[in-house]
């Protein structure tokens, strides 16, 4: 492949095709940058880190929501690539969408640790005990970069603008599963509503497009079971993990056990 055409959807809904020369290793973000630098300086798109961490360059590439910086043109196996804004969001300019509604949904789920005793949480000299096996229950959902690809791919979000969305529910579950959290009652009204966990129809598109394998489809089903269990058994307001003294500096030398998985090697998956 020598030549490449990017068919970009502009703000007015029209499409503009740009011809480029393909370079080995070129990503869609590289192509868009080349267009803006050499062909059309009016083209609008958002990006920042260029390495799949910030989640800014989400756009619909060949019909699928993807991060432009993580999408190799060679992986698409096409000479002509369509690039559109993310679906289910309002367009600000060309490929830039307004993500404020998405962030409002995220914030609505109170994505932070909630403790009944604020003083204890904010000014404690001790720490909460969380065992490694407890961490492994929510760590996967902590890797979300809020790129909003899952929301753009979700067929339920396409039908229901009030739907909380896969990302927000995943974040809610991340904190529900955290043994330190005591915020169940503050999240349940939104989770257990017609726009909450029950609105998901398990299409799995969110997990399919997630660039970090956060697997929102799994988190939603786990949140759903947790809602069902706690509502049926009336066990909503459970007490969170208790404060424990920090380990003494010599604890490691005295034969303290290492955690059951090495977070750097990903051995939990391989077990």
């Amino acid at each position, binding site marked *: 492949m020598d030549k490449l055409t990017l068919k970009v959807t502009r703000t007015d809904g029209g499409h503009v095709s740009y011809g480029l020369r393909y370079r080995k290793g070129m990503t869609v973000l590289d192509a868009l940058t080349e267009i803006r630098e050499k062909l059309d300086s009016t083209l609008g798109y958002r990006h920042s880190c260029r390495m799949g961490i910030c989640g800014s360059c989400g756009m619909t590439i060949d019909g699928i929501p993807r991060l432009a910086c993580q999408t190799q043109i060679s992986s698409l196996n096409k000479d002509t690539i369509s690039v559109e804004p993310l679906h289910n969001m309002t367009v600000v300019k060309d490929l830039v969408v307004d993500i404020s509604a998405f962030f409002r949904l995220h914030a609505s789920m109170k994505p932070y640790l909630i403790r009944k005793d604020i003083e204890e949480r904010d000014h404690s000299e001790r720490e909460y005990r969380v065992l490694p096996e407890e961490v492994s229950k929510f760590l996967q959902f902590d890797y979300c970069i809020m790129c909003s690809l899952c929301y753009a*791919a979700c067929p339920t979000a*396409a039908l229901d603008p009030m739907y909380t969305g896969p990302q927000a529910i995943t974040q809610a579950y991340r904190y529900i599963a955290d043994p330190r959290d005591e915020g169940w009652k503050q999240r349940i009204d939104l989770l257990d509503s017609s726009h909450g966990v029950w609105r998901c129809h398990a299409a*799995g598109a969110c*997990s*399919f497009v997630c660039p970090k394998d956060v697997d929102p489809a799994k988190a939603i*089903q786990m949140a*759903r079971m947790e809602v069902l269990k706690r509502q049926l058994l009336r066990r909503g307001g459970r007490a969170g993990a208790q404060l424990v003294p920090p380990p003494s500096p010599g604890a490691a030398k005295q034969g303290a056990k290492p955690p059951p998985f090495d977070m750097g090697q990903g051995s939990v*998956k391989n077990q």
Partner: protein
Amino acid sequence: MKEARRYKSGLIPSLNPLGFNVERWSYTLHRATGVILIGYLAAHIFETFQLGAGSAAWANTMAALHSLGPFEMVGLWVVAGSALYHGANGIRLILNEMFGKLMGKPILPVYPYSPTSLGRNQRVAVWTITGTVLALWVWAGFYLLAGLGIV
């Protein structure tokens, strides 16, 4: 203040599974077969309701149905396929949504990523359902053709 229009949002985009995972195709098929079944149910209720209007009304309804010729059987065949798919896929969805089965457990993501909720178990379930439903649907087709005296 009027809310700005969302890009490619609404019914038609929500039903477009092109390029997506097989579960998303299942979602679209589940919706489509659900609509067919609701349509059939409404027509069926209307049809049986004619019994209350007397034997003449019932005979007229039957005559109208039979006047469709082979399309009546084709319609029934589509309804049979819809019922089979909607029922079988519905069981998978209940297992997914109510019991969390076939979804896997939380893992530590390792590149290249492969979400466990769309993993082997889920794919086996989807393709087993599709294959079984297709086989039964073909069988139902022969059964209905035999009713017409064609095979």
